[in-house]
């Protein structure tokens, strides 16, 4: 079940992060400060958004509001069409993943190319990111090299990380030069100055926001902060928590499009503010804390479940603990509520979260909500004929566990034969598409216990 890529990384990464916060007193103070700023910010969210908008507009940034991802997509498409764009280069943006923007633009004849190296690898290989900070974390070097050989530059030797990085650099520089549209996310938007802040190491974010004639920044409405002075503590917990760095290579603060006398920078800058369920989270005092998230990924890196099963198992844009509380609220409790059940509530994520989101409390609340919603809408359906299969399963389970002779016989048969079941069996496919199928032990537990010489009581 363990992916060796994940195992290697996730023993290293939390260590790296803790080294960054050597002094646990400092860590606690920083978490209190950063969490406090986020709480204060979110509690004033409508005011801050109304402060951000005119300040951006005064700077020359055009502001758009979207309630749904469909609306956001069509805003971007309109901007792209006006700019006569055929090629858009993209910096990393989780909101764009929420929108499935690349797919949407492709359907409308516009190529949207990811330019963060990890995102690029995933996009070229038609996969989805498995981590919000390290999208290609589930792939090893040989696999990535194969992707480069087959789909990026067959003529080039791309075996080492250095060679592949150089290849990607050359391929993407050409794209940056040609693209008419640049798309980016936003890490923080400062209300008092109308400034969009982007955090990155590669420089692709700067390319996307500077080189093309038009820049579109996509932002969840919760990413606003009040003052410039709020930035240093948030930036420091973000970079330290995400990758264990004191700061990223680039912190890019964009306040306006190209001004008179400037020779580069986009001529138009657009900011799209996306709600997509966020204002609904705002209704509940506890669920609202979901909006504190600064998307650092620390909860994933510290989650004993995520680090073993990887991000694809969650089958949603946001994997890991934050995904378990975010996705059911974005997509609805009836369709994605099951994610809230898949947690042991161990609380490792809560300890790691740099802004102190009470993830386990929110999980419990979502489970409660889901149970209530089932009572109201689906209970009869669940007990009905639709779940005949489930009923039979439970009956069989009950029988097996109440008849020791049957249980032993079944265990010994399964331990000998079950590993020959193909993963692609229709019953297993919805599980095995993104996850490895657990294997039966070659010997049943009873036999192992007997062999170990432990007497049965």
């Amino acid at each position, binding site marked *: 079940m363990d992916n060796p890529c994940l195992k290697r990384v996730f023993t290293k990464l939390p260590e790296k992060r803790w080294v960054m916060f050597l002094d646990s007193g400092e860590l606690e103070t920083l978490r209190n400060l950063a969490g406090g700023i986020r709480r204060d910010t979110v509690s004033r969210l409508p005011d801050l958004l109304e402060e951000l908008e005119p300040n951006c507009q005064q700077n020359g940034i055009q502001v758009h509001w979207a309630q749904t991802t469909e609306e956001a997509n069509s805003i971007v498409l309109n901007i792209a069409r006006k700019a006569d764009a055929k090629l858009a280069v993209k910096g990393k943006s989780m909101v764009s993943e929420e929108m499935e923007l690349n797919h949407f633009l492709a359907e409308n004849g516009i190529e949207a190319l990811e330019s963060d190296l990890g995102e690029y690898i995933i996009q070229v290989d038609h996969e989805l990111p498995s981590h919000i900070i390290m999208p290609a974390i589930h792939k090893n070097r040989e696999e990535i090299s194969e992707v480069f050989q087959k789909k990026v530059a067959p003529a080039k030797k791309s075996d080492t990380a250095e060679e592949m990085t150089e290849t990607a650099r050359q391929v993407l520089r050409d794209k940056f030069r040609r693209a008419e549209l640049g798309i980016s996310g936003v890490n923080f938007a400062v209300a008092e100055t109308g400034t969009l802040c982007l955090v990155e190491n*590669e420089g692709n974010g700067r390319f996307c926001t500077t080189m093309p004639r038009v820049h579109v920044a996509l932002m969840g409405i919760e990413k606003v902060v009040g003052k410039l002075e709020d930035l240093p503590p948030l930036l420091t917990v973000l970079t330290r928590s995400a990758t264990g760095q004191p700061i990223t290579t*680039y912190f890019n603060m964009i306040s306006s499009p190209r001004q008179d006398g400037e020779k580069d920078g986009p001529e138009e800058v657009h900011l799209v503010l996306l709600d997509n369920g966020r204002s609904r989270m705002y209704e509940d005092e506890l669920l609202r804390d979901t909006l504190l998230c600064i998307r650092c990924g620390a909860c994933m890196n510290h989650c004993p479940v995520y680090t073993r099963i990887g991000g694809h198992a969650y089958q949603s844009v946001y994997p890991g603990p934050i995904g378990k509380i975010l996705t059911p609220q974005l997509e609805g409790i009836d369709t994605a509520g099951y994610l809230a059940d898949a947690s042991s509530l161990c609380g490792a994520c809560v300890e790691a979260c740099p802004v102190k989101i009470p993830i386990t409390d929110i999980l419990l609340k979502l489970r409660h909500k889901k149970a209530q919603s089932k009572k109201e809408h689906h209970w009869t359906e669940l007990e009905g004929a639709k779940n005949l299969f489930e009923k039979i399963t439970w009956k069989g389970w009950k029988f097996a566990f109440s008849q020791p002779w049957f249980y032993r016989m079944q265990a010994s048969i399964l331990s000998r034969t079950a590993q020959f079941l193909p993963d692609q069996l229709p019953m297993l496919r919805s599980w095995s598409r993104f996850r490895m199928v657990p294997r039966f032990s070659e010997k049943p537990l009873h036999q192992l216990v007997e062999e170990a010489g432990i007497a049965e009581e």
Partner: protein
Amino acid sequence: MDTSRSQILNALRNSRTGIPFSESQDLPKIPVPEWNLEEKVERLKNRMEAVHTEIHECTEKGFGKIFREVIKQKKITNLLYGKKTNWGNKLEAMRQRGPKTMPELIPYQKKIEDCKETLFSVDAGLTQTMGAIAETGSLILKPDGQEPRLLSLVPPIHLAVLDSKRIYSTFGEAIREEGWSRPMPTNVLLISGPSKTADIEQTLVYGIHGPKQLILFLIR
């Protein structure tokens, strides 16, 4: 679109009534380090060298000699720079005095649409810096008409000049002292090293999309 705006804001505002908001409590303060100039320089150097920045300390007078050495060692044959800037003027004077040991100087004077070819083919670019942050090891750049935004991004080698007197202890101090809040410069950048990635098996590689090398002349 306007209706989306009002519906989002209304939804947020309606949620506010009825639910008690935690008063924003007194936030803890992070003690600001009291470093003297030497300590700030040391800290900045340590941080920046740890992420592959090459640092040359020199006096303003000694700049010419060290600069020529770096140019020779890095085989820089042409250099993009900002005209009518303090250091741009110095470069021009140096080139006039000794053209053989200086690279060809190309001022960034045209609009990007008309100079992409040059921008993508030069060996290096030189920028000034507004200051630096010791705590994180970051240079502060404020691109403008003279030194455009892409000058510190596209050329594979970024040469930067920093006056050591302008090193702040923390980012917070820089924000307060620079008096940015309003109006903000069109673009402010913190640059901490050459561009890098670790997206392939967490192997750290320098020089992905931005500069492959960052060379800092620290003027004492």
